[in-house]
């Protein structure tokens, strides 16, 4: 039987991590573990030891930001195809384009409504 997907939330704000976990819990999707990291470096450490099916990442973070994390993942044969959704206040069209060109699977701009985020995650996880 197929294992339920593990998700990784990467954000330096514990408030946003809590909100994302709540939204994920409200989906009717069968999820495995939801793991948390405070920046890109922590995320890479978790990815080294766990099988993750989807990453939700902020862009602006200390130590390693979301763009650098995305670059690192896309340059790695192991994580080249790992779905990465960027969740950020950065809403300018140029920034969206940059994220897409780097290989972001999708992009959610903060502030977001729970319904909007739930629909997007449900669509991605059901693929």
């Amino acid at each position: 039987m197929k294992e339920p997907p593990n998700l990784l939330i990467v954000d330096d704000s514990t408030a946003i991590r809590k909100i994302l976990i709540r939204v994920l819990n409200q989906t009717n999707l069968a999820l495995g573990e939801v793991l948390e990291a405070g920046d890109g470096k922590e995320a890479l450490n978790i990815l080294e030891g766990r099988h993750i099916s989807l990453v939700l990442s902020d862009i602006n973070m200390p130590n390693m930001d979301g763009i650098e994390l995305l670059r690192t993942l896309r340059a790695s044969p192991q994580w080249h195809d790992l779905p990465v959704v960027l969740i950020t206040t950065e809403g300018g069209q140029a920034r969206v384009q940059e994220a897409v060109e780097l290989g972001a699977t999708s992009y959610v701009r903060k502030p977001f409504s729970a319904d909007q985020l739930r629909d997007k995650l449900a669509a991605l996880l059901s693929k």
Partner: protein
Amino acid sequence: MTAESTAMPLQAERMAEMLFAATQELFTSMLGTEVRLVAAPEEEPHDPFDGILSLIGFTGKVIGNGEIICTAGTACDLSSRFLMAEFQHVDEQVLDAVGEITNMIVGGFKNRLEAHVGRLQMSIPTVVHGKNISARNLKADVAVTLLCAYADGEIQLKLGLAASRD
């Protein structure tokens, strides 16, 4: 609302509109309530206050910062709405939530401003909680103060911006 401006690509009134639009967006989508503008004092009050000051800096063609000021009670109420949990006292979670609310409001303003001045960078939020807090914006070309009210409280929003000299 109070606003002063010189030597900037946009008038302070337009920036105040953009700041309020970003505030409305956050309140409607993530706090589940409406927010409205109320009349701010004509004279900028410089008296020390008790409560929360949350600020974020900008760099780029425009430099400066955006701030949110509110009481501890309002910070707890906003955090309760944001995280859907009850907060009675200011703690790490409340400070984190207020920082993130500031990030989204000031970030929303920055996204609107970028359409006029090009790409801007934003710092991470700094949140101060205490008594007798006193803050000043020095050398700002544009100073905007908005007082916003929602069902259970008020917040003050401030911008202190200047054209970059580089």
